[in-house]
């Protein structure tokens, strides 16, 4: 038997293997690509990357659309974060509350939700002795539950009474909203939803939309193409206690 037919047979096998390999790779690529693409879409910012100052999360609240009897945003926040009524409104945690105000001059009444205003220059962060109160680069003001010593100085400093001290033992907490007796907490702007990066909005705004009111517009105030930026460009709204020049992440319309 000559060597030639053996060599041609080997070449044929190699070509077949290469072909099968390429087909397999193409099939695998076709099968995995959508999944990879989905993961890419789901994680706007990988978990190991810090929040970026390229974004500034904020909210525009149109009090003209906010109904005085409606507290859907408050109930949604309580459900989302496991906030329960315990010993009365004086000591219960209230991350967001409904307030009705009347203008001294015109007598016009306005109803609005009030929560942490996510200041650019937050007094709570300035006064916190341990640095537990902090502001993320994307504008969300949070409390590090591991280093909060419960001194309540941030509550003394906050111009909006936006913070709550945990007055009792808690159980059945949500894994994404850790809380603890003896520490201070406040609205996180549903940072666990934001960080998912799937375009989810805070629970309060979602509930408001669910009621068909759409009074709470959440978005990236640094992105000129975002709905909130376009609305703010049209009418910048007001900041509560603007005289303090804290540059708030929450803006209101209808309480000028």
């Amino acid at each position, binding site marked *: 038997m000559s060597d030639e037919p053996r060599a041609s047979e080997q070449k044929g096998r190699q070509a077949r293997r290469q072909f099968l390999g390429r087909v397999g790779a193409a099939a695998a690529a076709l099968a995995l690509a959508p999944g990879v693409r989905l993961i890419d879409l789901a994680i706007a910012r990988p978990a190991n990357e810090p929040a970026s100052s390229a974004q500034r999360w904020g909210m525009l609240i149109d009090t003209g659309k906010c109904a*005085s009897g409606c507290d859907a945003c*408050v109930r949604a926040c309580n459900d989302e974060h496991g906030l329960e009524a*315990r010993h009365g*409104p*004086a*000591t*219960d*945690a*209230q991350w967001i*509350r*409904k*307030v*009705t*105000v*009347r*203008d*001294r*001059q015109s007598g016009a009444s*306005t*109803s609005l939700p*009030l929560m942490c205003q996510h200041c650019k220059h937050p*007094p709570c*962060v*300035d*006064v*916190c*002795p*341990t*640095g*537990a109160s902090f502001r993320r680069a994307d504008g969300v003001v949070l409390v590090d539950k*591991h280093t*909060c*010593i*419960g*001194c*309540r*100085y941030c*509550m*003394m*400093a*906050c*111009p*909006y*009474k936006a*913070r*709550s*001290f*945990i*007055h*009792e*033992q808690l159980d059945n907490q949500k894994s994404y909203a850790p809380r603890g*007796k*003896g*520490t*201070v907490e406040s609205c996180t702007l549903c940072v666990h939803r934001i960080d998912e990066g799937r375009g989810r909005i805070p629970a309060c705004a979602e509930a408001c939309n669910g009621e068909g009111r759409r009074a709470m517009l959440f978005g990236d105030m640094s992105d000129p193409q975002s709905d909130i930026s376009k609305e703010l460009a049209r009418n910048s709204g007001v900041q*509560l*206690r603007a*005289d*303090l020049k804290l540059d708030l992440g929450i803006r209101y319309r209808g*309480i000028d």
Partner: protein
Amino acid sequence: MKSIPHRILEGRSTGYYGLIAGLAALVLAGLWAAYYMESNGHHVTGMNNQIVWGMPHVFAVFLIVAASGALNVASVASVFNRPLYNPMARLSGLLAIALLMGGLAVLVLDLGRPDRLIVAMTHYNFKSIFAWNIFLYTGFVAIVIVYLWMQMERRMNGFVKPAGYLAFVWRLVLTTGTGSIFGFLVARQAYDAALMGPLFVTMSFSFGTAAFILFLLSLCRWAGCPLGHEVMERLRRLQGIFVIVVLYMVVVFHLSKLYITEQHGIESFILLDGGAVTLIFWLGQIVIGSLIPLAILYSPYTRHSRPWTAVGAVLISVGGLAQIYVIIIAAQAYPLEIFPGKIVVESSFFDGAIVGYQPGMPEVMLGVGGVALALLIVTLAMKILPFVPETLADVRDSPETESVDAPPATESAA
């Protein structure tokens, strides 16, 4: 002036052990109160999410302010070269450290997480005046300990003066820092005033001197240390001046607030229609804490009487607590101005409304425990180290006696 030797307190009498036992019981009661608050959560106190600082802070701030003022006597001796005060400098330093320890203990035990004290010692935000105060307090204790060492160790006596200067400057910064904890809170109508720092400095002079007078009168009575007329006369005069200075600062503070229209609401709340707060201000701070003590300290019928001087010092301390109560509680009870130009008609969290405060028993027990801890430290320390001067009797050849009023013929000894 000839240097006066010091001795340790013998401390073998039934009275001494009784005092130790009584103070220890109060300290234990304070510790139990802290445990009760921490294990149940702060809902068992009178504090809430509006009044976040209550009676423990009133006691703690009073003790801390009085602590730096208790160092006055030592400062007058070392910094202002008044040898008459030299024999009392050690007592002054000891009382200062003890009062500060008592105040800090209350402050720490009222934290939401006192078990995280180590976090407060290892994580610092240097923009926070609170963080600065942690250094100011621990530094004060360290500096006064060194100051006491310089006084007690004969070969180190040459350094008493520089140590005294350092302690004096430090205590001024410390009290300014304590006042600034409140003064830097721009959002609160009752605070937001640079005057808070200097106001606290003058308060410390007054409360600290009152605490020292009470301490000295008690010690000399129980330990049998002769106490001359000159010493008491000097302290009485100092005390009177300090009460007047605090009154002056309080008047300027409120007048400056009254000049600003937007502050009329909080001023009206404190001065006119604040219920308990107004009563505590006028009756506690002004009448009991200032006017009656001034009458006692300057009236020809009472000014040379030691029991009356002691009564005056007690009233000044009570008035001091009242003053700090008004500063801390009124500012929180009065609503924040979140919506200028608008009236809040409905809120689930008392926006626009004045919130009442009823101190809980554990809060008061913790505060009293802090006072007891300070006194216990003093009582025990005097038995261990030579703090007690052999005598504080008048020295006739001292040139300083010339400027002092002649003692009355019949002087009652406390």
